[in-house]
């Protein structure tokens, strides 16, 4: 798999190990038994790299979630683990400490571990609550969490709402810090490319941090390497490509059609886990899925079961990225293979050595069988969902919008779906999709839709609709905005010329399979629509491929695109909203850069590209990027690593906006 290749460059195992080590060291520093109070969203992240049993070995007696004042005082030591950059969380921690202190009879020792760092605001808040002196304060610099060897995520749950709705740039800062960490380890990214205003902010911040790093490094006596050389360009990493989610909302809004994407759509996947009704999976719990979930001792409701979804599974890596339409045959093939294996054992004339070799394979065989069983059940459940008539209708609308044809049926269909009480998130996704793809909906029509939404789902969604407008997802079309207006200028386009971009970058591909039935373009992940974000990456890394695609598609012949960076695609970038980033980073000390290159003994130059999504990435995009990565690897031995602030899907996007309260409740 491509993933294993990438891991050679950026050692994700190291990151995992370091996080685990750091956490356990902090826990060890608190002597004796302790109760651990953990912020809920952190719990499952921590669960990605350390098991509950390990925590127990380090003296953790009980584990609590940081919510509704449930901490008990059974242990003298109480350790809090929470995000220090969120004032609300900090306040909860402070209140809990005060509460326990006033209620409990014993003299407690409090320790607070702030993730990813101790902030000034946290100090201030603790001080206001009068508990700053009470607690031993440490920090756990948790940055990237490797979800897979080729996917590094910051797992910031609120990053989308922070960035897009509240316009709070905290996630950008967190991303910059983490990327800076990578630069310190692997050297400067020789070239930073990006699209979108937030991408620009991030790259500016990276440049600023680099210049500040000189000062920081020299005041840190332990860091002799940096003091003597300064940072030099990396010899392993070629590019950093930053994609701002705001550039490509439609991809996030569209229904993902890969297996993993649909799992996310139907069951929601978070931190490599999903929860499903145990009735779906049938009774017998497969041993391979359970032990990883040790972090939460709180009994999950009996009807829910957690399923681990990562590359440790036997079957999942093969099927996660395929289009759901082809999942049936794939599972079928696996089932047949397993069956034939089984028949082999039952064959009467077996020698002892045959038997021995089989027995040694038995555990993996069983694991595979268990995994097959789970995925067959899950796929069956998903197909119930995809076969529903509304799903078909929704998809039809989506595809019409993505193709870009001006069908009048779209609005009728949407209205009908509203009247039929289709779930609100789905409807909002469709409306937002239309709005983002055509730079707004005509005011009269928009008001009409809004009215229907309010009538169908309740007037509390006035708030929802305002939020969507603030996010730029559902806006009225303005005549004087966007590409039609020559004054809108060069610096940052306010709107994207989708028709132009669609044609130039071949965002719609009619045939996604070649004669042999194999996927031939990334468009397979949406059964025809090629995500803009990934096309942008291809515009940098696979220029000739895009070129042939464009010619085959009968598009006007564009100037031959060669060279590095965005070269050859400046015209498209100018018509996509948001700033364009293209920065070349050179070392302070050219000699040192050369020395480093020679030391590596690598004549061919760096080959890894990091694609970083500000504001979240979808599973479908990950699948598409893996597809690109595989092609790159076969062609030139290059590979891709995906970085992101978190995972996102249309459902989550809508969820950010949706007002949860109702009248009179």
């Amino acid at each position: 798999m491509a993933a294993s290749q990438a891991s050679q460059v950026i050692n994700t195992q190291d990151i995992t190990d370091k996080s685990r080590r750091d956490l356990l060291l902090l826990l060890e520093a608190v002597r004796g038994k302790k109760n651990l109070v953990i912020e809920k969203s952190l719990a499952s992240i921590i669960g990605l790299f350390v098991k509950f049993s390990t925590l127990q070995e380090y003296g953790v007696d009980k584990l609590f979630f940081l919510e509704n004042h449930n901490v008990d005082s059974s242990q003298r030591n109480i350790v809090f683990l929470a995000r220090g950059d969120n004032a609300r969380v900090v306040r909860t921690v402070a209140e809990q400490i005060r509460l326990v202190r006033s209620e409990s009879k014993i003299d407690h020792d409090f320790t607070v571990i702030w993730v990813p760092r101790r902030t000034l605001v946290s100090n201030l808040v603790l001080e206001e609550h009068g508990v700053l002196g009470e607690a031993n304060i440490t920090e756990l610099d948790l940055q990237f969490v490797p979800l897979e060897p080729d996917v590094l995520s910051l797992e910031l749950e609120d990053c989308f709402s922070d960035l897009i709705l509240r316009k709070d740039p905290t996630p950008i800062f967190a991303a910059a810090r983490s990327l800076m960490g990578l630069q310190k380890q692997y050297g400067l990214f020789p070239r930073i490319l990006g699209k979108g205003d937030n991408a620009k902010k991030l790259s500016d911040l990276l440049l600023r941090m680099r210049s500040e790093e000189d000062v920081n490094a020299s005041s840190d006596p332990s860091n002799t390497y940096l003091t003597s050389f300064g940072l030099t360009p990396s010899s392993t990493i070629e590019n950093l490509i930053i994609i701002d989610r705001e550039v490509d909302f439609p991809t996030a809004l569209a229904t993902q059609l890969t297996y993993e994407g649909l799992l996310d759509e139907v069951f929601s996947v978070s931190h490599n886990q999903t929860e499903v009704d145990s009735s779906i999976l049938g009774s017998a719990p497969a041993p391979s899925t359970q032990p990883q979930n040790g972090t939460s001792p709180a009994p999950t409701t009996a009807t829910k079961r957690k399923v681990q979804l990562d590359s440790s599974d036997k079957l999942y890596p093969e099927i996660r990225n395929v289009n759901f339409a082809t999942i049936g045959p794939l599972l079928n093939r696996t089932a047949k293979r397993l069956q034939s294996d089984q028949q082999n054992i039952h064959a009467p004339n077996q020698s002892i050595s045959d038997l021995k070799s089989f027995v040694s394979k038995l555990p993996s065989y069983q694991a595979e069988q268990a995994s097959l069983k789970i995925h067959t059940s899950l796929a069956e459940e998903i197909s119930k969902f995809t076969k529903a008539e509304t799903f078909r209708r929704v998809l039809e609308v989506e595809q019409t919008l993505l193709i870009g044809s001006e069908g009048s049926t779209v609005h009728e269909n949407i209205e009908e779906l509203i009247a039929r009480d289709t779930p609100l998130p789905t409807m909002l996704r469709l409306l937002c999709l239309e709005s983002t793809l055509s730079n707004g909906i005509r005011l009269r029509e928009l008001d009409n839709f809004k009215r229907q939404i309010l009538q169908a789902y309740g007037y509390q969604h006035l708030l929802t609709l305002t939020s969507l407008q603030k996010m730029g997802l559902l806006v009225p079309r303005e005549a004087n905005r966007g590409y039609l207006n020559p004054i809108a200028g060069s610096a940052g386009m306010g709107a994207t010329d989708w028709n132009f971009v669609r044609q130039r970058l071949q965002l719609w591909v009619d045939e996604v399979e070649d004669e042999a039935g194999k996927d031939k373009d990334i468009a397979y992940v949406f059964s025809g629509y090629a995500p803009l974000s990934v096309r942008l990456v291809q515009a940098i890394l696979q220029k000739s491929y895009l070129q042939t695609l464009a010619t085959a598609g009968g598009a006007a012949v564009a100037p031959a695109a060669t060279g590095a960076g965005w070269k050859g695609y400046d015209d498209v970038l100018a018509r996509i909203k948001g700033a364009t980033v293209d920065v070349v980073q050179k070392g302070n000390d050219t000699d040192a850069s050369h020395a480093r290159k020679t030391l590596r003994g690598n004549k061919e130059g760096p080959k890894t590209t990091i694609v970083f999504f500000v504001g979240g990435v979808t599973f479908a995009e990950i699948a598409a990027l893996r597809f690109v990565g595989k092609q790159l690897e076969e062609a030139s031995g290059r590979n891709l690593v995906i970085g992101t602030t978190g995972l996102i899907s249309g459902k989550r996007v809508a969820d950010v906006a949706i007002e949860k309260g109702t009248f009179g409740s």
Partner: protein
Amino acid sequence: MSKPTADWERVGDRFYRKTQLYTSVFNPELELENYVVTGAPYSGAVALYRDEGKIYTYRGNQAAKSTIDIHSCAGKLIRQIPWDKGRIKALGWSEDERLLVVTDDGIVRGYADLQGDFTPFSLGHGAEEHGVQACKFWSTGFVALLGNNSVVAVTRYEEPRPQLLASAPPGEVVSWTVIPPEYTSSRSVEVLLAIGKTVYVVDAAECEDRSLEAGPFRHISVSPNGKFIALYTEDSKVWVISSDFQDRFSEYESKVKTPPKDLQWCGNNAVVLAWEDELHLIGPNGAASKFYYDSFMHLLPDIDGIRVLTGDVCDFLQKVPDPTEEVFRLGSTSPASVLLDALEQLEKKSPKADDDIQLIKANLDEAVDVCVRAAGQEYSIHRQKQLLKAASFGKSVLDLYNSDDFVDMTEALRVLNAVRFYEVGIPLSYDQYIRLTPERLMQRLVNRQEYLLALKVSEYLHLPVDRIYVHWARQKVRSSSTDEESICEEIVRKLDGKRGISFEEVARAAYDEGRGKLATELLEHEPRAGKQVPLLLSVGEESIALDKAIESGDTDLVFFVLLNLKKKIPLSSFFRTINSRPVATSIVESSAIDQDRELLKDLYYQDDRRIDGSNLLVSEALSAPDMGAATDKLKMAAKLLRDSKEFAPQVAALEDAQKLTRFQEAFEKDLTERYVGLSVNETMSKLIKAGNMKRALKVQTEFKVPEKTYWWVRLRALVSRRDWRELEEMSKGRKSPIGWEPFYDEILSAGNTKIASLYIPKCTTLTVGERIEMWLKCGMVAKAGEEALKAKDRNALEELRKQASGPALLDVERMITQLQKGR
């Protein structure tokens, strides 16, 4: 030149040596016996203060003023701290030369850098009432013993958190000591208390009695590596045991009636007993040697030996290091010793030099190594040179030799000799130098304001020099009396272009000195925006601080500035400040949503953001306790927007929302069912389900619900109510705004094929094939056949025949023949 072995002393089978480091250390009039003396680790500074419990000669008023004096080991006064802050109970040093002064009321004052002001903290845990008895220090912390025998540990000085250890039994603590955390198995500090006849070991969790019988122990001391404990018993014996109290290694009887005033370790393998002017050095297996001094002395233990300080001299007592012993021991025939001899012969131009070399030819490389290492252990520059020359000579004979060690040693020695010079007064041994590290040595030099030396040494050793410059600048800012402009100019001129200079630290020093303007000026040269922020806040430049915080991209800083700002200035100017800075505004907004809605309202009002203001009221309405309050909020929300035409749809929606609740409340009254909280469509649906068609219709007209929507709602409600009669009635209708197909679909999926089939003929827009399919889904093959027959579709009929059975099969066959006939 005296012989190298002149100051050696044999103790058992080993040699110890006493090196005189400095002479004329203190003023001869200083009565050292009346002072408490304590030295920083790694040959650091020495602090003295007069022991108030002792009588001293009256010298007039001036001398009666109490001070803490900090000297170098050579006696040079580094700093004098006037003292009027209560009774000093303990004085100690940390590894980084931070002086800690503990008074009996439990206040600890830490004087960092030998220069700066102190930072105080309190021990707490009852220290105030019971009083501090004594303290024991280790490299990074200390333990205080209180009057009630409780023990309080401080494990770090940055943000100290005094921690109460497990409680010890009552009784007089005869002597006590600590094992530093790095040497204990639990990795937390352990305190050894000699109470009564035994010793208790106290740590954070428990107090354990080691059940010894031979007490009371006058003295107890732990070796520098934490492995051994030396105890002095009442019957004047010294015991050396392992620190886990499992093994006893040696015993020595001092035969002196008066108990010694001090017992300390000299390195890890000898113990020193000190009386006023007499020293017993006890090596392994109880072997001992005695030293006598002319005057009162103090012991300053270090990691590899012990410094002996009298009014006149400063000596260093240590075990003769192995390479030194190998080279210089009388009658030594080791290769290194021969090599040294060869050098002497060479200098005499004697041919014997070659004989020597031939003699040790086989072990020459080892001899060179030993000479190099021995050179490192020498304090005499002459002998250092001799040994290095010998090594160099040996090297020249060897064909292949890696000279790295030799070069490193010459470098190290050059540095060591420079800092040992009496005006600097840091008599580091080579081992101490390695343990201390060159970087921290630079810090010590800087603390002594030896800037030039520090710079030279740093450049020589390729160490970063920015700290030195910054320290110099800070000192400059503190002490210079010239006008601020020229100070700033001088500092900037000197520091400009140097890599990694932190102007922020310099500026902070200026600020602490009360030179606010200078601080701001200096701050402008700081490259890191974030670092400027806290200081800018302190000097009252809030809006610059805010800009810098935004520039740094660190939202924590921005938020921090904002919180400070909000406290400081009136709300209106606060809003004005953030108004022009979108990032600041969004951070205020996103934090206020969780905690301070009133602030948000003011903000929206001030900025004339009506939609936001109105939405805020809507969300308040959502969380209102009762519908009356909610309606009021909605009214207010609508009022906010009413003036402007552009918000007309919003206002209409808000009014509809109120109207809806009015309707719903009325329904609730009439129908005793819950309606509030439902949407318009849901309300209609619920009404239909309950059979209240009229009311539903009224809602439709009242809210202008589109016809299509209404039909859909009605259809779905009826189906879910399984109101087949009504549905059958509807199939007789002439026209449906949503077509008839949905009726078929919905009813079929509810499972009623009969009613569903009623709608098939009405779906006239569909193709024949589709209609056949529809009939089939209802299980009516014959009807499907009729459809095909009407369309004269032979193939379809053939298909149907395959599926049909029973009477339907006959029908289909009949139709096929009919079709054939028709032809």
